[in-house]
């Protein structure tokens, strides 16, 4: 496989094709903002009703584990940005190397997430299955916080898994020299998606880990 010589028939130039696909991705990201936004809106509503339970709930999460996951995800965003830069310069080998690094960091994040879920499971902090690990009088409200924690992080983790799959396909295409300095739209829009998922986590970190850390 090699890179295309001409843009798709309905585009005047690769630049125009490129901008159209990027705009399409931003349109999709708008729907994603509202997708996560709906859950975050519910989170905010119940946080205003039960502020103290939210403090107690966030203390069930490890601040340092959350910070470590944030750093891993930020590093994956850096390697993703470098992969896009390599694509703009037409360096196929560098694209593959940086995408492999991004995928590896994404898998490390998911492993840390799995480790964290395992901790909640063994400490009986999974509402709906076994929430006997928290016995204080406000346990129904704290359970609600933990439900939001699981929904938000699972939704985010699903996006990460999809992202890892997309980047794997892009890496294989780059390995087959599908992309060139003028024709590399798929690398850029996969990058937009990855960075967006990173941004979601940047907000989840203070909302799920830092509410009560100071108490």
């Amino acid at each position: 496989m090699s890179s295309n010589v001409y843009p798709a028939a309905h585009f005047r130039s690769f630049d125009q094709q490129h901008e159209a696909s990027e705009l399409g991705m931003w349109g999709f990201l708008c729907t994603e903002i509202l997708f996560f936004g709906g859950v975050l809106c519910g989170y905010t509503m119940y946080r205003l009703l039960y502020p103290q339970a939210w403090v107690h709930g966030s203390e069930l999460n490890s601040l340092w584990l959350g910070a470590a996951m944030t750093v891993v995800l930020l590093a994956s965003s850096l390697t993703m940005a470098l992969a896009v830069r390599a694509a703009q310069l037409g360096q196929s080998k560098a694209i593959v190397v940086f995408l492999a690094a991004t995928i590896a960091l994404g898998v490390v994040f998911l492993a840390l997430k799995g480790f964290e879920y395992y901790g909640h499971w063994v400490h009986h902090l999974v509402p709906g299955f076994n929430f006997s690990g928290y016995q204080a009088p406000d346990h129904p409200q704290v359970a609600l916080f933990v439900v939001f924690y699981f929904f938000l992080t699972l939704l985010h983790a699903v996006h990460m898994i999809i992202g890892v799959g997309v980047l794997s396909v892009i890496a294989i295409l780059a390995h087959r020299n599908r992309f060139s300095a003028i024709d590399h739209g798929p690398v850029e829009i996969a990058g937009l998606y990855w960075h967006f998922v990173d941004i979601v986590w940047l907000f989840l970190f203070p909302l799920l880990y830092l509410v009560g850390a100071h108490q």
Partner: protein
Amino acid sequence: MRFYAGIFGALLVLTALTTGVAEIDLGALNSPVAMLIAAAKATLVALFFMHLRWSGYRMRFAAAAGLLWLSLMFAFVLGDMATRNIPAQPAGWNEAAASAARSPLK
């Protein structure tokens, strides 16, 4: 490459800052400070990693539209919560009964 590494460095500093500040009790400012730092990090990622800084107006418009719709959703929900008509308390009404009535979980 050095430029992207610089942005990454700034993001790490902000992460350390928000984690460190979380150990200090700022009272009512706890959440605003944490969310402000998160917004600053998100802005760095969007402007430089997602290239919005160099994108045309169409891309910026699309990104702004997402935020506009999100703020509309929050504005209506929070506006509703802030302005709900709370009826006058009948005799014998106490705080425990009030919280039991408010809580859908009991």
